[in-house]
C-alpha cells in the first residue's frame, strides 16, 4: 500500500492516494460478484425443484423436513406456507406461492429471483455448475495469491492489539454510529473488516463448496468422509442453503458499508486500485 500521489486539499491538510487493492484482488472480487450472483439465482431455481430441506442421510416427501415452502388450498385460491421446524408462516406472494404471468403459482422462490425465471431445473443446473467451476478456479487463484503475495498476512490478519475486547468494543460502537476510520487509520482495514473477510474467505465460501460437493453422488465415492463431516447428503444440502443466506446477509451489510463509508472512494479503489486518504497535519500524532 504505497503512497502513489500526494495532493494538498486545504491548508494544514493533504490528500494522499494509496494503492489499496492489487489487480489480482480487484479482478477476483468482480469475478466473484458475477459468480455468486449467478450461483444464488440458479441455486434458488434448483431449490425450487424440491422446496424442502431435511437433516440426515436421506430425506424426501414422507420424511420430516426442517424447512418447507408449500402451496396450500385457501378456499378457491392457493396460499404460500413456509414452515421452519414447527413454525408456519403465510408467505403468499413471496415463498410457496407467487405470481407468474398474472397467475398465483405454486413455487418455492418467486420468478424474479430465479435463473431462468420459469421452472427449468436442467438449465438452472447447467448455469450453477458452470459458474461453480469459475468460482472455484477464481478462488484457488485468489488463495494462492493471498498466501504467496502475503495479502492475507499483510492486509487481513488482525494484529494482537486489535483483538482485545476493548478495541473490538470501540470498533463496534464506531460502526454502529457510522463513524469510520480517517487519516492514517484508513490506510488499513479495521479489525471488524479483517475478521469478517477472514470468516467469508476461510469459512463461509469453503463451506459452500464442500457442502455442494457433498451433494454429488460421484464426489461421495471419492470422499465419503465428507458425508460424516456434514451429517449426510441432506444435511449438507440444508447447510448449503443456510450458508448461502449467511453470504447474502454478508453482502447486504458489505454493500451498505461501502455506501455509507465513502461510496466513490470505495468503488474507485476496487476498480482502479486508488484510494484517497485525507491527512490533517499533526492529527495522526495524537497521544
Amino acid at each position, binding site marked *: 500500500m504505497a503512497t502513489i500521489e500526494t495532493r494538498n486539499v486545504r491548508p494544514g491538510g493533504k490528500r494522499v492516494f494509496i494503492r489499496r487493492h492489487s489487480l489480482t484482488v480487484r479482478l477476483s472480487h468482480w469475478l466473484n460478484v458475477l459468480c455468486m450472483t449467478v450461483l444464488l*439465482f440458479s441455486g434458488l431455481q*434448483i*431449490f425450487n*425443484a*424440491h422446496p*424442502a430441506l*431435511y437433516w440426515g*442421510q*436421506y*430425506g*424426501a*416427501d*414422507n*420424511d420430516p423436513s426442517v424447512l418447507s415452502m408449500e402451496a396450500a388450498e385457501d378456499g378457491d385460491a392457493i396460499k404460500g406456507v413456509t414452515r421452519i421446524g414447527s413454525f408456519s408462516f403465510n408467505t403468499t406472494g413471496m415463498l410457496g406461492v407467487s405470481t407468474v*404471468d398474472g397467475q398465483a403459482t405454486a413455487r418455492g422462490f418467486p420468478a424474479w429471483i430465479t*435463473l*431462468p*425465471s*420459469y421452472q*427449468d*431445473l*436442467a*438449465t438452472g*443446473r*447447467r*448455469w450453477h*455448475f*458452470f459458474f*461453480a*467451476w469459475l468460482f472455484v478456479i477464481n478462488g484457488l487463484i485468489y488463495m494462492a495469491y493471498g498466501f504467496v503475495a502475503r495479502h492475507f498476512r499483510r492486509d487481513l490478519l488482525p494484529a494482537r492489539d486489535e483483538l482485545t475486547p476493548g478495541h473490538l468494543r470501540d470498533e463496534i460502537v464506531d460502526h454502529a454510529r457510522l463513524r469510520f476510520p480517517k487519516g492514517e487509520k484508513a490506510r488499513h482495514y479495521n479489525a471488524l473488516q479483517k475478521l469478517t473477510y477472514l470468516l467469508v474467505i476461510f469459512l463461509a465460501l469453503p463451506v459452500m463448496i464442500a457442502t455442494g460437493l457433498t*451433494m*454429488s*453422488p*460421484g*464426489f*461421495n*465415492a*471419492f470422499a*465419503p468422509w465428507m*458425508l460424516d463431516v456434514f451429517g449426510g*447428503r*441432506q444435511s449438507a*444440502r440444508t447447510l448449503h442453503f443456510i450458508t448461502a443466506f449467511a453470504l447474502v446477509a454478508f453482502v447486504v451489510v458489505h454493500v451498505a458499508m461501502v455506501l455509507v463509508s465513502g461510496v466513490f472512494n470505495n468503488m474507485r479503489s476496487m476498480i482502479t486500485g486508488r484510494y484517497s486518504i485525507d491527512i490533517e497535519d499533526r492529527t495522526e500524532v495524537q497521544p
Partner: protein
Amino acid sequence: MSRIITRRRFLIGSTLTASALGLSGCDALVESPKVQSILKIAEGLTMKTQRALIGDDTLAREFGMADISPTFRANGTSMPDGAQYQDLLSRQFSTWQLEVGGLVERPTKLSLAALKAMPSRTQITRHDCVEGWSAIGQWTGVPLGSLLQQVGLKPEARYIVFHCADEFEKTLDGSGWYYESIDLVDAFHPQTILAHAMNGRDLEVAHGAPLRLRVARQLGYKQAKYLMRIEAVADLASLYGGNGGFWEDRGYEWYAGI
C-alpha cells in the same frame, strides 16, 4: 435529459417486447444456443475431474439396515399403462424376458427366474433425485458386468443402453419412451446391478418391476426402471434425441455424478 428519457423509453420498450415474448433479459440469454454450448463445458470438466479423482472401481457408500428410508419415494412412472406391460404384469412377469443384444457376441434372452438364479449382489445405497431429495434402500440384483461378460461385448461397444417399458411422455413419434445409457466404466462397476428385489422383497411396480438398473455413483434419472432390453452400442447419436437418455434429450447432463 432528453437522452435519458429516450434511453428510458428504449428500456421500457424493450422490456415490453421481451415480456410479450415471455422472456426477461436473463431468460433471453439463457435460451441463446451459443450460451448453452459454452455452459456445457462444465459437464465435461466435471466428468473428467470426477473420473480422475474417484477411480473406476471405488464404491459408493453402503449403509446399514437402520439407515433405510421408512418410505422410499417412487418417482417418474409408477405404473406403465402400455398393453404389453399390463399383460406381463397380469402374468406376474412369468412371460417377461430381458433381451440382451446390440454389439455383443452372443445375444440372449433371460427370464426373471433365470436372472434370479444368477449370482447376485445386495447393497444398501442412497438414491439421489436430481430434484434434491434422497432415499436409501436395499437392492438385490445381478451385477451388470457379469452379465456382459457372459454375452461378450464386441470391441467396438462403448455404451450400454437400457430400453424401458414406460412411455413417460406421450408423443406421436414415439420419442417419449424412457431409456438410459452408461459407459463401460459404470457398466462394469461392482455396484452396477440389475435389481430384481428391493428391501428384501420382489421389486414393486412403482419402483420398476420386474427389473431396474442401479448405478450407485450417479443421480436417480440414470436408474432406469421397467427394463425390457439392453443394447450395447458404439455411440448414442442414433438413439432417440441422440443424447443418451430420456432426460438427457430434455437438457439434463448425461454424466449425472453431480
